[in-house]
């Protein structure tokens, strides 16, 4: 691209880019937006994004040594953890970052719910966000198998069996997930492929869409509904860059410190190598699936047990289209807040029950 107006004071990097890319207009559009002073994001969304970045970096490093075959997977993970320089750190950070990513994603979801930020004009942002939740859970499910130890193997056996209980498509889905009737080499290789190729690309793309939506709409003001039609934020605002970004980076640094502490004090472990002939006494999924696991144990009809969380996710996705109350302040939307608190209490209760059962 050429320009009719070459820079008048050549020499600065900014000018160098400007003369070639019309850099300033792009940066203005991306960074120079205003944030309502009342907006309280607690940086949860940004922290989740940061953790995704950590996962990409540590996951790439792990992939340099990991071997996705039943014969070599366990030994390669053992090698990474025991012999590769700082391999334990990379693996532990990947492990903890995965858990924190789901945790902060849920916090982000709850923040948006309680601030009613899913309402007009952000309905699509919410739906895309629920898609991100699903993709992140799939990341957890596929990544869990890769160490190929007893816990990984049997959690996958149980997890895929749950998927196999879905009416009509269950049997086909089970075979599709496992690459056959049982959890075998075929399962490991497809889980690896999905985990390191399909999901990162999908998540990257959907995150980009999510961010474009957020950028276009700006941050929600939790004290009053957005005007119709949309307008420039009313009331006092502060610049997204550098003020908001600086606060966000400080939050990221605290998160990084948390990752370092967790990884150093509670490094990722490894059980005995997977043995399809020896079922451990207590097979449990990861904490974020424990609620569903406990629900399945207590609902006598398997189909109902499996459909309940699926229906819940669908209802969650279409929440902006169900909840037509324009109010955003919690005391003006008591039913939504009560239902939200009840759902959280049930999920936490089931998770704790699942942990101790």
């Amino acid at each position: 691209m050429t320009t009719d107006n070459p820079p008048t004071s050549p020499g600065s990097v900014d000018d160098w880019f400007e003369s070639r890319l019309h850099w300033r207009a792009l940066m203005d559009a991306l960074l120079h937006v205003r944030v309502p002073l009342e907006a309280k994001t607690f940086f949860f969304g940004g922290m989740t994004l940061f953790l995704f970045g950590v996962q990409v970096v540590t996951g790439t490093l792990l992939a340099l040594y990991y071997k996705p075959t039943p014969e070599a997977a366990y030994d390669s993970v053992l090698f990474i953890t025991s012999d590769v320089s700082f391999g334990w750190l990379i693996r532990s950070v990947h492990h903890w970052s995965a858990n924190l990513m789901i945790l902060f994603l849920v916090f982000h979801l709850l923040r948006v719910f309680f601030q009613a930020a899913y309402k007009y004009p952000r309905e699509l942002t919410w739906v895309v966000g629920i898609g991100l939740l699903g993709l992140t859970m799939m990341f957890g499910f596929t990544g869990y198998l890769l160490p190929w130890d007893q816990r990984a193997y049997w959690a996958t056996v149980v997890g895929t069996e749950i998927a196999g209980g879905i009416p009509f498509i269950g049997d086909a889905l089970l075979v599709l997930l496992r690459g056959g009737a049982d959890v075998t080499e075929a399962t490991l290789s497809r889980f690896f492929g999905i985990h390191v190729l399909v999901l990162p690309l999908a998540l990257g793309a959907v995150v980009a869409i999510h961010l474009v939506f957020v950028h276009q709409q700006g941050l929600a003001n939790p004290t009053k509904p957005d005007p119709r039609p949309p307008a420039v934020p009313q009331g006092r605002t502060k610049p997204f860059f550098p003020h908001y970004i600086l606060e966000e980076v400080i939050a990221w640094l605290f998160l990084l410190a948390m990752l370092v502490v967790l990884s150093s004090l509670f490094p990722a472990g490894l059980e005995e190598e997977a043995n399809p002939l020896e079922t451990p006494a207590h097979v449990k999924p990861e904490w974020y699936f424990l609620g569903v696991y406990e629900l399945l144990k207590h609902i006598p009809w398997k189909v109902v047990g499996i459909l309940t969380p699926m229906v819940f996710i669908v209802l969650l996705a279409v929440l902006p289209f169900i909840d037509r109350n324009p109010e955003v302040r919690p005391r003006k939307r008591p039913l939504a807040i009560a239902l939200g608190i009840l759902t959280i209490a049930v999920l936490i209760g089931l998770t704790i029950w699942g942990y101790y059962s």
Partner: protein
Amino acid sequence: MSLETKRRLRHLRLACLAVPAILALLMLAGSASAQDPSPEPSLIPGPPAPSPIAHPPGGDVDQCFECHVSLDDKQQAISETWQESIHGAGGIGCADCHGGDPGSDQITVAMSEANGFIGIPSRQSTVDVCGSCHSDTERMRSYGLPTDQYDDYWTSVHGQRLLEANDTRVAICIDCHGSHAVKKASDPTADVYPLNVPAMCSRCHSDPTLMEPYGIPTDQYDTYAQSVHGEAMITNQDVRAPSCTSCHGSHSAKPPRSSEVVNVCGKCHTATEELYLESRHSELETAAPKCWTCHGTHDVQQPSEALFFHEEPPDYECTTCHQPPDMTLVLDVEQFDDEADRRCDTCHHPESLIYSQVEAISGALGGATGAQAQAQGKIDEAKSLGMIVHDAEVALTESKTGYIQGQAAVHTTKLTDVTVHTDEATAKAAEAEAMAQAKLDESLFRRTAMIIVIAVILINVVVLYVIMRRMSHPWEEEAEEPPTA
């Protein structure tokens, strides 16, 4: 302890030390003083196997069953039990044991003596009724069943008592296999299924009324249930574990004699038997300490280093091991009934050479277990810190394997055979401990590095916070007015 007692004890010790020397001389002189104390009494021969009960052939319908199943509840239950039994399934009908004509629906015909009806066989003749078919090779061939049970039974203590005294209280075929409810031994619901055998034998052998006339104790089942064998079979339901019949036999049931014990235990403990046969103990032949001398009989426990010595040295009595008047070496089972007496120093005096050998063997094993405990402690500590200690655990497992081999080698009574394994076990345990220690060191490094990294991150946070505070905050002075676009 009084001076007199001390003097007597000293004399006893001297006597005990003198006895092995006298024994050696006697053995050199070809004396047969070390013999099985009670020679086997000759067996009363059992009767020849009788012919199967002859009866008219039945038709397509077994009329015995047809009538009896519709009689009273008792007859109905008997009929249905038979129908579900292995005999019922195999077409072995009522008349094959009771005689009579199974083809007739007339009671006067079907149950007439003319048609060979014998009714309920007496307990004496029941063995013959069963044996008549089960010793018939032609009949048993198609079922792949052995035909020696009948002859075996007469050699058992049960059969001999029946022959000798016509004592019908002894166990006969139906007491173990049932009469109408006979099942395959491989059927888990059968009384004779391996896991059910101890409970089955105890039905009689734990009954004080039944056992009192024979002077047989009734605590074997309870003792066995608490043994390492009983725990494996009853608690862990491990069919490989030995039950009563594994040592006593089934149809030929009889307590193994002292001279047979090594072979009986050696059926399963083959490697240990081979090691024992290399030992000085084994060379003493019939009078030698056997498996039960150290491990007991029904109350076998997991062996441990506690088997070497008493906690307090015992009061030595020559007659513990030697019988007057000629001080023959005799070790009776009753002498070792108390588990606390099954120790090397029960026989081997602290001033004997053998005692010091036992001390060396015990020390070698103790050294290995001590090293293993230390390694295990480090491994547990490293694991509690989240460290992966796979290599150390493998080394410790190898050490434990060496220790078990050392434990088995104790049966040779030779120090060098034991130390070749315990030295390796100790070295492997030290290796495991070093590996676990390396993990502990690494954990310490991680924690130290963590503090440094956290400090660096916090410095960054402080710097960014300062920059943030120094930046202008124009909105704080702004009025509540919409900003210009």
